[in-house]
């Protein structure tokens, strides 16, 4: 696993800032987040609930309610050389589902209850391919087979409520992948599923990634999942990206105290099975977006908090080689020479 498998980003996100108009004024849910997604890799995005993971991914797809959402002036989401954050609706429609696909957390409600599975798979193909009705049907069956749904010929005539949760998520994946997108954004695809099914779905996604060469942006609470399938990780906290690194780096040499705390809150190896599926808990609470602390956003919960952390917010800086972290006093620092060995 390297930092950048092909060293060719398919998606570049720069200074993404997403705010919402609410009754209480404007709330910024994602603040100046920049990252790349490289072809063929799996980027993990982790962070506590409410830190802006979903908003980040929906901003990329532009799925947020248009009239309530404001994107920052400098925000850029560059895909195929174009800044799609300023693209018009029609251009976005061509990209959605075709080039960038997305699957969601809740398989129970994410499928339309009044249309058959086949119809819903067919719909994506209809928008993005020129296949005939019969070809689309075949393709749909093929996709269902690919995601290991037994009896696909029969299943395409069924309604979502006739499928189990795991099957529905498989259908969602089939739907997302049927046009062979460049990027698949998976927003907590397994959170709502049983542990065993969870593992199956992750294996499936991993396998499909290899087969279809799709880059995956995997959003999750679950560091176990990250360890299992991701190449690189972005850690988010209160709307900010606070640390980047390869999976190994993040797990063995976390630099941000928050990442460290996250890791420490997981029960040690060996007890993995008994591990609670809830997100790791860290003492203290996430600051409200309406009421952020002045300095570092993590300062009130940070065990190593100093005066400087209260006064000024750290920039996202490479303290050591290609490991950007947003902290004044990062942990586990290595000098450049050390890491060269």
């Amino acid at each position: 696993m390297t930092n950048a498998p092909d060293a060719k980003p398919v998606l570049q996100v720069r200074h993404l800032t997403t705010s919402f108009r609410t009754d209480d004024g404007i709330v910024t849910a994602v603040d100046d987040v920049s990252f790349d997604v490289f072809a063929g890799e799996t980027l993990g995005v982790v962070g506590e609930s409410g830190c802006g993971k979903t908003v980040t991914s929906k901003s990329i797809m532009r799925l947020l309610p248009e009239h309530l959402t404001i994107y920052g002036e400098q925000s850029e989401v560059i895909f195929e050389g174009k800044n799609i954050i300023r693209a018009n609706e029609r251009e976005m429609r061509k990209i959605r589902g075709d080039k960038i696909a997305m699957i969601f957390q809740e398989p129970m409600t994410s499928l339309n209850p009044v249309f058959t599975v086949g119809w819903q798979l067919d719909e994506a193909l209809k928008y993005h391919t020129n296949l005939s009705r019969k070809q689309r049907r075949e393709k749909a069956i093929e996709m269902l087979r690919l995601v290991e749904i037994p009896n696909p010929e029969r299943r395409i005539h069924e309604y979502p409520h006739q499928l189990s949760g795991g099957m529905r998520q498989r259908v969602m994946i089939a739907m997302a992948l049927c046009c062979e997108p460049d990027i698949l954004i998976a927003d907590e695809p397994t959170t709502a599923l049983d542990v065993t099914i969870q593992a199956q779905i992750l294996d499936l996604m991993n396998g499909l990634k290899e087969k279809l060469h799709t880059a995956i942006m995997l959003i999750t609470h679950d560091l176990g999942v990250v360890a299992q399938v991701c190449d690189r990780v972005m850690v988010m906290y209160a709307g900010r990206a606070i640390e980047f690194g390869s999976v190994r780096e993040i797990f063995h040499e976390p630099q941000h105290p928050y990442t460290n705390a996250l890791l420490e809150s997981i029960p040690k190896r060996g007890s993995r099975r008994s591990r609670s599926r809830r997100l790791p808990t860290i003492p203290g609470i996430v600051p409200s977006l309406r009421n952020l602390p002045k300095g570092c956003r993590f300062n009130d919960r940070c065990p190593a908090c100093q005066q400087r952390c209260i006064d000024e917010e750290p920039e996202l800086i490479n303290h050591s080689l290609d490991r950007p972290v947003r902290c004044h006093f990062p942990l586990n620092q290595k000098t450049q020479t050390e890491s060269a060995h």
Partner: protein
Amino acid sequence: MWSYIVRKLVYNVPVYLGIILLTMAALRVRDPVAGYLGKNATQEQIDRLTQDMGLDRPFYEQYGKFLWQIVRLDFSEESWAQRGRTVKQILIDAIPPSMSITVPSVVASAFIALVVSLISAYFRGRLIDRTLVFFAVLGMSISYLVYIIFGQFFGAFLPLHQQWEFTPFAIQGYEAWTSWSHLSVLGLNIPYPNGIKFENWIEYCMLPVIIGVIVAMGYDTRFYRAVMVEESNKDYIVTAMAKGASKPKIMFVHMLKNAMIPIITRIMATLPFLITGSILLEMYFNIPGMGRELITALIANDFPVIQAFVSVLALLFILSIILTDVLYALVDPRVRLS
């Protein structure tokens, strides 16, 4: 499917028995005969009417007898206030006028409200949506009666009074716009239209229909819009967007089919009013429909008519609820199998 229908039917039997019980009890809180005949009636008159109606029998006996009447749809008592007409005759004669007003107005208002609420939901949160919602609330805040009064004034009275060229509507009254033939089914004469005089309908029914539509507009639009908004918050909408579906596709295909479930329920819920007719419209425009007959009977203490009308209305209401459930099952695949 059939077992589903049968289950629904069986479930509603106790409800209907309850309705009849309640209606009969409520109508007997006061002595109907004394109420009808007034203070100057002789004892002999009172006794005779009481016996004719069987009101001197114990309540459970009356209850049983009346239920039996309903089962056979046999209401052959004479009306008290309208001498010489049986309750059944009154019922049958009142249906066509009611229907010629309520059917068009339910259909038209459902259709228009659906279109308006789709527009509103499409532009949700924008000026056009807020304007529509505002007007819907304004419209709902005015009394039905005021709509009728001014509807008649501007629609019929003013044009006639000022001798405008365009005076299509009568101020009030009713004339049949079809001749009705009767089909005899199970001993009941079912009327069906036969030979149509459309100008009569325009003259006597169209204005009440327009008023009825305008009144319903506020309520329906708001309800439909709320349904659409509810649906547009659902996850499957985002999934459809993520697939690359266009906004019209999402609204008219994904959302509308889901929204149809509560909307059908609502339209079906108005079905019994097809029969009651719009009581107010009928009273004000002097249209001899079901609603008018019922209210006239209530005012005139016409006991047999009241009792039969309420029971039949409730029966139709319950049948339409069952029909709603069946339609529901047809639209919503989730209900179908369970």
